[in-house]
C-alpha cells in the first residue's frame, strides 16, 4: 500500500474533513503524508480540535490505515481517491467533496452508460410510488442511463430493482460502511447490484454503523453523482428532500413526480413542484430527454391490446381499469357486467401477463 493512500484513508476517517481541505494543504506545500508526520502542533495550526488530534495520534500508533486497507482487500472493496482521474467530476460541484470513496462492484460506470439519474424518495411510500420508481428505474435501465439512489426500503429499492431488471447500471450510496448490509431486507438486492455490474458506494470507513446524521450527509454524494434528480414521493421532512435541495444548490435539475395533495407522504415532493421543480408527468418523455436516440416507448402502449393471450373479457377489464383507475372487484364486475368469479379469474390472468396490479387490499389498476 502506498504512503499516499494510507494517509488519505486516515484523513477520510475524520468526519468533517473533505477533499478541499487536503487541496488547501497541498497548495501550501504540505502533502498529506507530511501533514500526518507534522505532529500535533501542525494539526492544531490547521484547525484540528484536541479530540481529532488525539484520534489521529492513536490511529497512527496502531497503523489503522494498514488494517483498514487489509479489511478492504479481504472483502473485495476498492477505494477511489479525489486524486484519481476516475474520481467522479460531479462531486467537485459539492462544497465538501469526499476525500475518497469505498466501493464494491463496477465504479465508475462503464463508458457506454449515459447520464446518471438520482431517483430518491421516502421509505414508507405508497404502492403507487413504488410502481413509478420501478417503472422509472426500468425505463432508465433500458435506455442505458444509470440510477443513483440510497439503497433504502421503499422508493430507493424499487428504483434500483427496476433498473437491475432492465439490465441497467445502478449505484447505491450507503450511509454506512460499504461492507454493511442495511436494511437487511435488501441483502439480495445489493448482491445483485454488485454481480450485475452495478456498484455499492460509501465514503465511510469499513464497518461504520448507520447513524441518523450520516444519511443526510451521504445524500450530498447522491446529488453530486447525479445529473438530474427525481423525487418520486417524499413527505415534507425527508432525506429525499435534502438530496433535492443539495442538488438544487449545486445546479442539478430537480424533477418530482406529482402526488395526491391529501397524502402526507407526497407533501415534500409536491412542494418541490410548487417551488419550480420539473414535474415528471411521463416517464417516457423524461427518458426521451436523456436518450433521444432511443426508440420511444409508449407508457400505455396500445399494442398490448393485440396480445393473443388476452381474452375479450380481459380486454374489457383492462380498458375499464385504464379509464377508471383504482377499482375493486365489485366495481369492475358492475362496470363490465361480469360475475365476481370471472372477474377474479380474468384479473389473475391479466396479473400474470403483468397488465394489472393490485394497489391495495382488493383494489386493482392497470399496470404502468
Amino acid at each position, binding site marked *: 500500500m502506498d504512503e499516499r493512500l494510507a494517509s488519505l484513508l486516515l484523513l477520510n476517517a475524520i468526519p468533517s474533513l473533505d477533499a478541499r481541505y487536503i487541496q488547501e494543504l497541498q497548495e501550501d506545500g504540505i502533502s498529506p503524508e507530511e501533514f500526518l508526520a507534522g505532529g500535533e502542533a501542525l494539526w492544531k495550526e490547521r484547525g484540528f480540535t484536541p479530540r481529532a488530534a488525539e484520534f489521529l495520534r492513536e490511529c497512527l500508533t496502531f497503523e489503522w490505515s494498514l488494517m483498514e486497507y487489509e479489511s478492504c482487500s479481504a472483502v473485495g472493496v476498492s477505494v477511489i481517491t479525489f486524486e484519481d482521474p476516475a474520481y467522479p467530476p460531479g462531486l467537485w460541484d459539492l462544497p465538501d467533496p469526499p476525500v475518497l470513496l469505498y466501493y464494491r462492484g463496477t465504479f465508475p460506470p462503464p463508458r457506454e452508460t449515459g447520464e446518471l439519474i438520482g431517483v430518491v424518495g421516502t*421509505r*414508507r*411510500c*405508497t*404502492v403507487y410510488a*413504488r410502481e413509478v420508481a420501478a417503472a422509472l428505474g426500468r425505463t432508465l435501465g433500458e435506455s442505458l442511463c444509470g440510477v443513483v439512489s440510497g439503497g433504502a*426500503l*421503499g422508493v430507493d429499492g424499487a428504483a434500483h430493482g427496476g433498473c437491475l431488471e432492465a439490465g441497467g447500471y445502478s449505484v447505491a450510496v450507503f450511509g454506512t460502511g460499504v461492507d454493511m448490509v442495511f*436494511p437487511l*431486507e435488501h441483502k439480495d438486492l445489493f448482491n445483485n447490484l454488485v454481480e450485475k455490474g452495478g456498484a455499492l458506494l460509501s465514503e465511510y470507513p469499513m464497518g461504520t454503523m448507520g447513524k441518523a446524521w450520516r444519511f443526510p450527509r451521504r445524500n450530498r454524494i447522491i446529488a453530486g453523482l447525479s445529473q438530474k434528480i427525481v423525487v418520486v414521493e417524499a413527505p415534507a421532512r425527508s432525506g429525499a428532500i435534502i438530496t433535492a435541495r443539495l442538488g438544487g444548490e449545486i445546479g442539478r435539475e430537480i424533477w418530482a413526480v406529482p402526488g395526491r395533495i*391529501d*397524502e*402526507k*407522504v407526497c407533501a415534500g415532493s409536491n412542494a418541490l413542484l410548487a417551488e419550480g421543480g420539473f414535474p415528471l408527468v411521463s416517464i417516457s418523455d423524461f427518458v426521451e430527454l436523456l436518450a433521444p436516440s432511443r426508440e420511444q416507448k409508449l407508457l400505455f402502449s396500445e399494442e398490448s391490446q393485440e396480445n393473443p393471450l388476452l381474452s375479450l373479457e380481459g380486454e374489457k377489464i383492462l380498458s375499464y381499469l385504464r379509464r377508471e383507475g*383504482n377499482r*375493486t*372487484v*365489485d*366495481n369492475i*364486475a*358492475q362496470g363490465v357486467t361480469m*360475475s*365476481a*368469479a*370471472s*372477474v*377474479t*379469474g*380474468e*384479473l*389473475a*390472468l391479466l396479473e*400474470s401477463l403483468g397488465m394489472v*396490479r*393490485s*394497489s*391495495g*387490499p*382488493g*383494489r386493482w389498476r392497470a399496470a404502468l
Partner: protein
Amino acid sequence: MSAVWGMTLRGAEALRVEVEVEMTGGLFVMTLVGLPDVAVREARERVRAALRSLDIPLRGRIAINLAPADIPKEGALLDLPIAVGLAVQGEVIPPCGGALFLGELALDGRLRRVRGAVSGAILARDLGVPLYLPRENAPEVSLVDGVEAYGVPDLASLFRHLRGEEPLPSLERSDPPEQIYPVPEVDFQEVKGQGQAKRAMEIAAAGHHNLFMVGAPGSGKSMLAKALRGILPPLSREELLEVHRIRSTLGLPFDVSPLPPFRCVHHTATTPAVCGGGSRLQPGEISLAHRGVLFLDEMPEFRRELLEAMRQPLEDGCIAVNRASGSVIYPSRVLLVCAANPCACGYYGDPKVSCRCSATERRRYAKRLSGPILDRVDLHVAVPRLTPEELLSEEDSSRESSAAIRERVLAARERQRSRWGSFGYSCNAEVPEKLLRKSMQLGPKEKAFLREAARKHMLTGRGMTRLLRVVRTIGDLAGREELALPMFAEALGYRKDGNPWMNA
C-alpha cells in the same frame, strides 16, 4: 350391599361408576371414598337433605365407595346414584342394578341439569340399560338413538317409578325439525358489495376449504365470516350429536337447530382455551367449532405457539388432549376462517385513509402473516373497504340470499360425496393429493397454463395442490366434471401471494 350405576366424565367420554353403599350401626357419619372431587364430596349434604325431604332419614355409619377407585370422579351428577343407593340400602325402593342414574340434587329433592348428558346417553345405550336423568337434560338425549331414557323431575317421582307405583313416561326419540333452516344472524343479502369475498366463501363452504381474508378495519370481514355459517350444509343428525356431545360436556345450552357452530376466538385466548385441556380435560374452542366455523380475527395478533398448536388438529380433524390426569381425543373438523388487517394501522393501500406505518413496521407485520396456519389455507381473498360512494352505489343492486348460495353449496357437496364417497372422503379439502390429481384429467392447454402459472408466481408443490383443490371445487359448483381454463384462472386469483402489494 347394593350397587347403583352412575357416571363421571373424562373429556367428552362417560365412564361408568359403581356406587356402593354400606350402612352399619353407630353414630351418624357419612364417608365418601373413590377419589371424589369437591363437588362429589359435597354431594353428602345435598343427598341427605333431599332424602330428608322425602322423610327418609339417614342413620348409622354410612360408607359410600365410588368404583373403580383409582379414577378421579368429578361433578355433581353423582348426587342421584348416591341417593338411589342409599334408598335401596334403606329398603325404601327395591334394588335397581342395571340402570344408569345421573343428576344433581336440590335440597328439596328436585333434579338439576348436569353436564355430559349426551355422553351419558351414549354410555347407557352401549351398556344396554335404561337411563334416568334430570328432565331439563331430556332434549339433548333425544338425539341419541336406541336408548331407554326417563326424564326425572324430582326424587319422589323417581322412587314412585322404581317402586312401580307410577311409571314415568320414557322419552321419545325426536328428530330435529327437518330442513327448517334457521335464519343465521347475518345473511349474505345484507352484505353490500364484496362479490369476490362472497364467491370465495361459497367455494370455501362447498369444498370445505380454509379461508383467509385481508382488508382494512370496517371492510366487513367479521360480518362475512358470520354469514359463512349460513351457507354451510345443515348438520345431519349424527353431526348434531357430535356437536352436542362436546357442548354438553361443558354444560352449554342445548340448541336443536341444524345450523353449524360458529366460534370466534379472541387473540388473547390461551392455548388450552383453544385446543382443550385443564385439569378436567375440557374441550377447547377448536372442538366446540367442530363441524362448523372457527373464526380467528386479527390473526397476526395471535401468539405463534397457539397457531403452532392448532396446526395438527386442523390437519387431522381431531385433537388429543394429554395431561397428567389422563388423555382424551376430541374431534376438531373445522372450517377455519382467518382475518387480518393489511398492516398494523390497518389502512395500507386504502384509497381514502393514509397508512401511518413505517416501512419496517409493514414488513414486520407482513412477516407475521405467513407461517404454520396459512399453510393450511386454500383460499386467500382481499376485502376492500368500500368508499361511501361505492357503498351508496351498491345500495340498490340486487344481491343473492344465503339460501340461494346454500342451494349451490349443497349440490356441490353432493357431487363430491358421489365422487369421493367410495374412497371414504366427503369433500375436496380432505382428499389426498394423489387421488385428487388422478381424478383430474388435464388437457394440454390446462397443463401449459399450470406450468406457466407455477413459473410466474413461483408456486410450490403445495401451492399447486391447493390450486387444484380449489379448481375442483369451482368445477363442482358449476356442476361440471371436466374443468375449463377459466376455472383455473379464477382459482389462481385466490392463491397465497395474491396480495403482492403486501410485500412492500
